[in-house]
């Protein structure tokens, strides 16, 4: 599918613009012309498939599955369900209320809320497309592990008193308010897939192109081993710095991965790049602001702290073993 792209990128760069090979500009331009269409195609395909898959999962189903589950096993299942259940950060609050009032333990709820944005299908497929299955698998495994462990740790801390009181005063959610959408037709599921493409691809393409452009700039202009000194495995402080930098930076996975790719290409260590990416997509300020409506500041800080430490450990571990 991408076989035609490389010659195309070369042709535009060298013939159409008649630039000479070997300069910063040509190197950056060729990178951009090859990566941009490739990533957009891949993204469209995957978002469509995931949109259809998600039509089989609803938050109501996830909740009835998780209610009354024990910690540990519950954390694991919540992390897995978080990846496939449709979720948008603007629904985080109603989802949180729905879960805890139905008896899903707080820590298990957090496992779900952590994995839903962090283990992201867009990120997974882009990593697969750009770096191969090993890095994609590492990301998936580590993302799930962080969601499980962080949720479990928050559950152990007994933080229930830091949930706003009115949440538990909400009358118990017995049974579904809404009749489940049973027997959704395939036509409807396919429409949901197309909706997802329009929605997600329509929203992220400027970020994606901007991300690839920044990546192309780094690819063309930043010297080969520049990042090795700042983000290489030799610098112990690089992982904490990457995590801290990632929290206020809020981007979707599609925008961040081309940058990660370029950083890696210039000698940044894998663990550092991965930590940076997870922090950007998994810990976002806007989501914390939204969650403030149901969580007291102390619990939000704990949530950010525990997840941040989890990402930190994963990043450092990778730099040690790779």
């Amino acid at each position, binding site marked *: 599918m991408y076989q035609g792209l490389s010659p195309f990128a070369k042709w535009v760069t060298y013939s159409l613009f008649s630039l000479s090979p070997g300069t910063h500009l040509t190197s950056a331009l060729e990178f951009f012309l090859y990566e941009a269409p490739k990533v957009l195609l891949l993204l469209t395909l995957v978002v469509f498939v995931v949109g259809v898959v998600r039509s089989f999962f*609803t*938050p*109501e189903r996830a*909740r009835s599955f998780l209610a009354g589950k024990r910690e540990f096993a519950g954390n694991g299942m919540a992390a897995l369900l978080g990846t496939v259940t*449709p*979720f*948008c950060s*603007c*629904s985080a*609050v*109603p*989802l949180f*209320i*729905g*879960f805890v009032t139905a008896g899903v333990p707080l820590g298990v709820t957090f496992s779900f809320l952590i994995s839903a944005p962090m283990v992201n299908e867009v990120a997974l497929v882009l990593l697969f497309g750009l770096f191969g299955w090993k890095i994609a698998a590492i990301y998936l495994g580590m993302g799930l592990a962080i969601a499980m462990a962080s949720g479990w740790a928050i559950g152990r801390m007994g933080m229930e008193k830091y949930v706003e009181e*009115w*949440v538990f005063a*909400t*009358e118990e*959610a017995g049974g*579904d*308010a*809404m009749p489940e959408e049973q027997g959704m037709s395939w036509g409807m599921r396919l*429409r*949901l897939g197309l*909706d997802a493409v329009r*929605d997600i691809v329509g929203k992220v393409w400027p970020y994606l192109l901007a991300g690839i452009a920044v990546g192309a700039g780094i690819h063309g202009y930043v010297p080969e081993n520049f990042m090795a000194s700042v983000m290489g495995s030799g610098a112990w402080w690089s992982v904490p710095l990457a995590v801290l930098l990632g929290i206020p930076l809020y981007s979707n996975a599609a925008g961040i991965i081309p940058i990660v790719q370029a950083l890696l290409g210039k000698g940044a260590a894998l663990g550092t790049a991965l930590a940076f990416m997870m922090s950007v997509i998994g810990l976002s300020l806007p989501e914390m602001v*939204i969650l403030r*409506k*149901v969580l007291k500041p102390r619990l939000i800080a704990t949530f950010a702290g525990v997840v941040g430490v989890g990402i930190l450990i994963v990043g450092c571990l990778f730099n040690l073993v790779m």
Partner: protein
Amino acid sequence: MKIEILGTGCPKCRQMAEVVRKAVEKSGKDAAISKVEDIREISKWKVMATPALAIDDEVKIAGRVPTVEEVTSLLTP
């Protein structure tokens, strides 16, 4: 007929409001559309995903933006 749109004001909630407005126009029904944006009010409806659509106090759709045709058929049972 009473129509309520539940959502905290995200882009999808606005899309849903637009779809519902068109559907009401098309069906010619006499319906009062209102938005419920306060999260405590929304949580009383027991929906876990926004935007959601309630017709005559019954939640019909949650977590996605429906098409105009879909809403029209809900309006004229």
